[in-house]
């Protein structure tokens, strides 16, 4: 009877909190995997966008989930969002790494790593190879621009993009006021706009030649 009940659980239909409870009380590995599958790409992408290296991203991702596993009973508040809690751990681990490095990591600085990054981008259903190439180029340039943003601005952009966090949540996570978080977002957008304009200007110049 018990096994039948277990089989009948549709993990995909459960909320994060329910999955956490199932994992916590029964040690159900499938519940944990469902949680991980649901959020792994966002967490990994955020880490990668901040550190710009696959090997370091792997380490930080693993460190994050090791903490998630071991601290679940102690520091996770059942009332709160699980993903927000995980994000905080991932964010802190990323910031710790960046502080240790004490330098701005440019995704563009290492060609080998970038190749690795773009090789593992998810496949898109594209009509033809030309469109695919254009899209890849657009993503390429976008990532380059984002990587050039100051760390604080990049943080806000990525947290907003990958986690759809409110500015209140971003402010809490990054330990600044809401207005500071809003200001950082605004400057990030202004800087990106300038970079896009510069890029367009170059393209126009090349076209005129």
């Amino acid at each position, binding site marked *: 009877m018990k096994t039948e009940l277990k089989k009948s659980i549709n993990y995909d239909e459960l909320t994060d909190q329910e999955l956490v409870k199932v994992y916590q009380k029964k040690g159900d*590995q499938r519940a*944990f995997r469902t949680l991980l599958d649901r959020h792994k790409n966002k967490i990994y992408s955020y880490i990668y966008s901040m550190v710009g290296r696959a090997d370091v991203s792997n380490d930080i991702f693993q460190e994050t989930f090791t903490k998630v596993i071991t601290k679940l*009973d102690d520091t996770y508040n059942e009332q709160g969002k699980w993903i927000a809690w995980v994000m905080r751990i991932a964010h802190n681990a990323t910031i710790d790494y960046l502080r240790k490095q004490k330098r701005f990591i440019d995704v563009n600085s290492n060609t080998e790593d970038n190749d690795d990054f773009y090789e*593992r981008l998810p496949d898109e259903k594209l009509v033809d190879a030309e469109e695919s190439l254009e899209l890849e180029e657009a*993503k390429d340039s976008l990532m380059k621009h984002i990587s050039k943003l100051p760390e604080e601005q990049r943080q806000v952009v990525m947290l907003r993009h990958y986690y759809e966090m409110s500015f209140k949540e971003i402010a809490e996570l990054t330990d600044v006021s809401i207005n500071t978080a809003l200001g950082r977002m605004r400057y990030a957008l202004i800087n990106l706009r300038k970079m896009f304009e510069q890029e367009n200007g170059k393209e126009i110049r090349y076209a005129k030649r």
Partner: protein
Amino acid sequence: MAKKSDMQSDDALCIKYLMNELDPAEITLVEKKMESDPNFLIEVECMRRTLKRLDSVPTMSPPDMLVDQICVKAAEYRKAVIPIPLVSRIFQDARYASAAAILIIGVSAGSWFIFNSSTSQPETLSDYQFQNTTARVSNTQGAGNEVSPWVDHNNVLNIQAINSNGNTNNAVADSSILKSLHKLRALDNNVGSPSSSPEIELARQKQE
């Protein structure tokens, strides 16, 4: 100063407006401002376009092997940490309790047996002689005479009868010895180890 704070609040409103974080009243306010201020409208539209481009920021996946490793670690950790159900715990506790009870009973019985066997058997022959002789002889004597046996340094049992005046009474002592001798029986050679059965010599101490 007031102009600067107005600008800051406009910027904040603009970002919040684009991020859908305004309440209906604030949305109306921003839209009115967009209608009345063309610069503000341009600012908002530029921001919107830039923001739109961010939608194509790629999402990446961690390596599958890494995800599998984490899942295995999660399962192992949980297995070690998860509390044992109450019924199993009670059953386990009962098993521990019964094992402890058996151990206590065993130790108690063993120590009782060792203690009894050590107190019931005299360690030396002189102890045996002293204890038994005192009891028997004193029972057979009258109230006026006291027979005090002792063992000297040669392991010889001495029996001396002392009357109520404190003088030795050889007649009483002799009769006690005689009575005792009647009760003596030849020892079986097989009883006790040969080395631990010393010879007994009975002698009457002569008074000078």
